[in-house]
């Protein structure tokens, strides 16, 4: 039994190892980029739009409202980054319905890369919105004593993001493997259905947490709108 898809190595040259994680990640990226390109080639604003365009519009508008509700005032500036994170993790997790596929998010290297991009994006957005001195001053916010704790919390946010996604996806694969040994008939099906749900929830949580961290860095308090949806 192996812990992650890093162990299956297709091709090796010196220090460079082409393992399953890299291959799957690039295949997913190609699929998503080519698919999005094909769909957005013929965008129209007429009454009758194609089914694919309607689907993409629903996804983009949904992500936009979600970012807006998590207290980021201008979602257009951040939807590129956060939407990419969410869509990549969601697609990577949803493809587990295919038999031999192993999610690249079940490998610690992929999740660390995603968390590091959040780790870089948070101070970037903070400095761009507030200026360098104001952003650095926010680390010593209540008192100066809080400075080391704020820096540590910045680091543990990144660690927790990576470990949470990795642990959830790896445990899904692991439980499926164990259940296939114990009760191979019905239960693996139920657990893989649960795994799909967990994958979507984790993608959503990764996106929401990235939004929350960026919103905390840029420090805007948008007026709380009264929710009228039920």
């Amino acid at each position, binding site marked *: 039994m192996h812990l992650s898809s890093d162990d299956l190595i297709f091709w090796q040259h010196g220090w460079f190892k082409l393992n399953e994680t890299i291959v799957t990640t690039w295949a997913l990226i190609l699929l998503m980029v080519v698919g999005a390109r094909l769909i957005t080639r013929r965008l129209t604003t007429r009454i009758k739009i194609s089914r694919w365009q309607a689907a993409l519009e629903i996804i983009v508008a949904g992500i936009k409202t979600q970012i807006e509700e998590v207290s980021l005032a201008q979602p257009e500036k951040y939807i590129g980054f956060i939407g990419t994170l969410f869509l990549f993790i969601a697609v990577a997790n949803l493809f587990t319905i295919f038999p031999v596929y192993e999610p690249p998010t079940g490998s610690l290297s992929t999740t660390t890369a995603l968390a590091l991009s959040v780790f870089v994006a948070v101070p970037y957005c903070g400095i761009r919105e507030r200026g360098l001195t104001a952003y650095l001053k926010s680390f010593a916010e209540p008192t100066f004593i809080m400075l080391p704790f704020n820096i540590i919390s910045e680091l543990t946010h990144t660690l927790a993001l990576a470990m949470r996604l990795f642990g959830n996806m790896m445990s899904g694969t692991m439980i499926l493997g164990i259940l296939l040994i114990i009760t191979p008939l019905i239960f693996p099906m139920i657990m893989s259905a649960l795994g799909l749900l967990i994958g979507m929830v*984790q993608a959503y949580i990764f996106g*929401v947490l990235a939004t929350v961290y960026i919103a905390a860095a840029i420090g805007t308090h948008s007026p709380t709108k009264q929710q009228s949806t039920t």
Partner: protein
Amino acid sequence: MDNITIIAAASIISAGITIGLGVIGPGIGQGRAVASALTALAQQPDATSTITRTLFVGLAMIESLAIYCFVVSMILLFANPFWNHAIAQAAVK
């Protein structure tokens, strides 16, 4: 018992203890969080979307504690550095 047996026994037992004791706290925490969210939902059904989103994020935060325990026990079982070291030592001899 030689060293390898002791390392194997200690790894297996502590992996079980890690996951067993480690999920107690997050279990209680998640139960309390869901109970509070249900109370809030019953009192204010209008704020359903906000409460649900906050609940999910909070549950993910609490759950990550249990996930840490799970990862540690998986490392102890399948990728144990001490076990690998002992095996390497035994191979040298």
